């Protein structure tokens, strides 16, 4: 199995030997700024860099990652392409009703030949009834025939603008470029998906530079989704942000155990004799983790797809589905894992991290209690002894009845624990508000002390 260690620091020195001992192929990736995005595949991940696509099974960040909580949003979207002025494929580009933009003289003056190529392209696009902007610092008529070309372009509907300063921005949500073009009198904003630029010198450098600039702007906004603890919201991506070597190695061992468990399990067993082949489980499974086996007239689980949500249990009329025995792991972990909602605990997350540093505590920020699923709690219980969820007081949720939903979630998680024959009393629910910090701290203390004396 291949693991990518992403991060530019000394941690690789002591992390790599541990991983190779355990039979992993380690791939170091110190140039974090080169990663455009990461896309999840069925069995692993694809890391996109400007030059290549790298396929890896697991990813461990050794420094604060750029994508994290918002990771899913990020992976489905990619950066737009900035076209070189000589690239004719812009003609085929679907401009989604927005104008096609030719931006010249960026980072140095474009030569007359470049202008001519751009003009030709602009005319041919404008003739297909597409809106075209042609933005440059000066008008060039150095080659004979240029003046006629300008005239023709004007007739075909190309809009000409002269500028002194231009800003290029990229909106990753809308997947659009946002141009802000200024001249002596004012400025104009243009939105586009098809942007072709030209300047002096090698165009590839400039397009790369523009994309880098835009990405660095967007990265700032993603910083706030940083989680504490080594788990992220995506299975298979982990963070090691410990301050000491010991802490990192300890968490790394947990990750290795996690990965090995992850690969072996189907999570559920289906009794072939009992299965009525009724398709109920296939219909309700939100992860498409079951498929029909026509030879034996029964359902069978699909490898790696199951998310342990337990939906299929509740609908099976023949009680043919059971949890796989291997999954019945004894709880080895120590300490407490806290899910804190945005309205209650998460406001105090920095304070809580300081407060809980001494003990073995992990904290995850969730936007609302309604967002976590039973399997999130159970996953946390694989590595921690106890789990606490901090949510709003009754009636205080500003989302959709998050407090009621989390009560149901906890009940389902407890049922599941009972089914597995494990201790279900290790899941706690703290109802609090951010404006009572002492109460929250004392509640956490009491949860930690609970059951220690008996």
């Amino acid at each position, binding site marked *: 199995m291949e693991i990518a260690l992403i991060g530019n620091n000394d941690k690789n020195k002591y992390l790599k030997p541990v991983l190779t001992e355990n039979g992993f192929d380690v791939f170091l990736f110190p140039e974090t700024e080169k990663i455009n995005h990461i896309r999840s595949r069925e069995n692993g991940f694809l890391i996109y860099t400007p030059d290549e696509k790298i396929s890896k099974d697991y990813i461990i960040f050794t420094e604060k990652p750029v994508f994290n909580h918002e990771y899913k949003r990020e992976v489905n979207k990619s950066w737009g392409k900035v076209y070189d002025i000589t690239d004719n494929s812009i003609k085929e580009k679907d401009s989604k009703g927005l104008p096609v933009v030719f931006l010249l003289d960026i980072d140095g003056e474009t030569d007359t030949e470049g202008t001519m190529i751009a003009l030709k392209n602009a005319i041919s696009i404008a003739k297909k009834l597409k809106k075209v902007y042609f933005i440059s610092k000066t008008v060039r008529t150095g080659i004979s025939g240029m003046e006629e070309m300008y005239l023709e372009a004007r007739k075909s509907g190309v809009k000409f603008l002269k500028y002194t300063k231009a800003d290029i921005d990229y909106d990753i949500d809308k997947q659009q470029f946002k141009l802000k073009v200024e001249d002596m009198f004012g400025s104009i904003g243009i939105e586009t998906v098809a942007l072709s630029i030209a300047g002096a010198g090698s165009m590839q450098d400039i397009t790369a530079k523009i994309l880098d600039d835009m990405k660095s702007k967007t990265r700032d906004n993603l910083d706030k989704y940083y989680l504490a603890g080594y788990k992220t919201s995506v299975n298979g991506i982990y963070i090691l942000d410990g301050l000491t070597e010991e802490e990192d190695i300890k968490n790394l061992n947990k990750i290795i155990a996690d990965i090995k468990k992850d690969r072996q399990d189907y999570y559920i067993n289906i009794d072939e004799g009992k299965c009525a082949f009724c398709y109920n489980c296939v219909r309700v499974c939100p992860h498409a983790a079951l498929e029909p086996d026509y030879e034996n007239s029964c359902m069978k689980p699909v490898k790696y797809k199951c998310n342990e949500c337990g939906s299929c249990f509740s609908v099976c009329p023949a009680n043919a589905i059971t949890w796989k025995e291997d999954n019945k792991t004894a709880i080895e972990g120590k300490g407490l894992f806290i899910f804190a909602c*945005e*309205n209650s605990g998460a*406001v105090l997350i920095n304070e809580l991290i300081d407060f809980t540093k001494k003990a073995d505590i992990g904290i995850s920020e969730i936007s609302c209690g309604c967002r976590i699923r039973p399997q999130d709690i159970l996953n946390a219980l694989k590595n921690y002894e106890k789990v606490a969820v901090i949510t*709003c*007081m*009754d*009636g*205080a949720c*500003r989302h959709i009845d998050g407090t009621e939903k989390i009560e149901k979630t906890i009940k389902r998680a407890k049922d599941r624990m009972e089914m597995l024959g494990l201790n279900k009393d290790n899941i706690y629910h703290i*109802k*609090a*508000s*951010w*404006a*009572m*910090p*002492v*109460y929250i701290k*004392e*509640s956490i203390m*009491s949860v930690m002390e609970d059951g220690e004396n008996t």
Partner: protein
Amino acid sequence: MKKILILGGGLAGSVVADKLSECGIQTVIIEKKSVPGGKVREYGCKADDECSNCGMCLVKNLFTRIKSDKNIDLKLNSKVLDVYGSKGNFKVLYSENREEKKLDNISDIVVATGFKDTENLDYYGLSMPVNDRIIRGNEMEAIMRNRGIDKVFPKAPEKLAFIQCFGSRDKSNSTNYCSRVCCGYSTRMSRVIRKYYPDVTIDMYCMDVQEVEKGKYLELLKDKSINMIKSRPVMIEGQSDSEKLLIRAEAESKKKNDIYDYIILSDGIIANPENEYLAEILGLHMNKNGFLEEVELPEKSGLYISGCAKMPMGIEETFNMSEGIAQKIYLGTV
């Protein structure tokens, strides 16, 4: 690009700045203290088992957002000295860390200077000793905030009293109006105290009770056995170190003298003494209660007033009003 000036970095000012920042409009906040947040910063959640809609959840991480926002220029330890010009082009003279500075290109000004510091409140007619067990509204808020898992007060009390309308509706002073928030916060606090101490006697000396929530709120208080006593106490007797305090009052035409462990004064919202000076430099009207009022329509004059600088109001009302002002300013710039 023109900026918006906000006087006061409390709840009202911060909400305006936050909402405008979402629209990409740049703001400057002038805050006299060394941290943003004003008085709300010290307030606590007032839910017993159920949320009592005190509005504190709305505040959340507002002030940390304000500090790190790129569109907001937060000037701490500052005070506005003078304002020239009119809507679209105000020029402002202010002091930052006792240094005089100038601001140009201000299109609108939002006055969100809040209310008077309760620390320096005079004793309104009620004679009383100086004692730690006589607690002000804002001190009680801090106690609510710092309440633990099983206690509110360091030692469990037997008998508690709230004195309503303290510093409000007093004809002998300039505060001849209802502050509107005290009934809300004191009854909510009494519910929290009831949750922690089921056996404590809670008396509430009041003239009447404002509508806090729609529905049968008074009956809910009755269910929680919070005694409403229609009376205005005359004096509190006791020494500065005594643990029991005596309230002398007259209720139902009879003398009522009772001994309490803690007495909570539900003090109201008193206009900021700086309002007079602000009214002068900004050309606003100060009413007889000391609150600011607009002379012209704010859209015309470019002068908006939000929060308790305008009239006494609670957290949720302040929030809504400030959001409304931010919206008006944004629509003016489009």
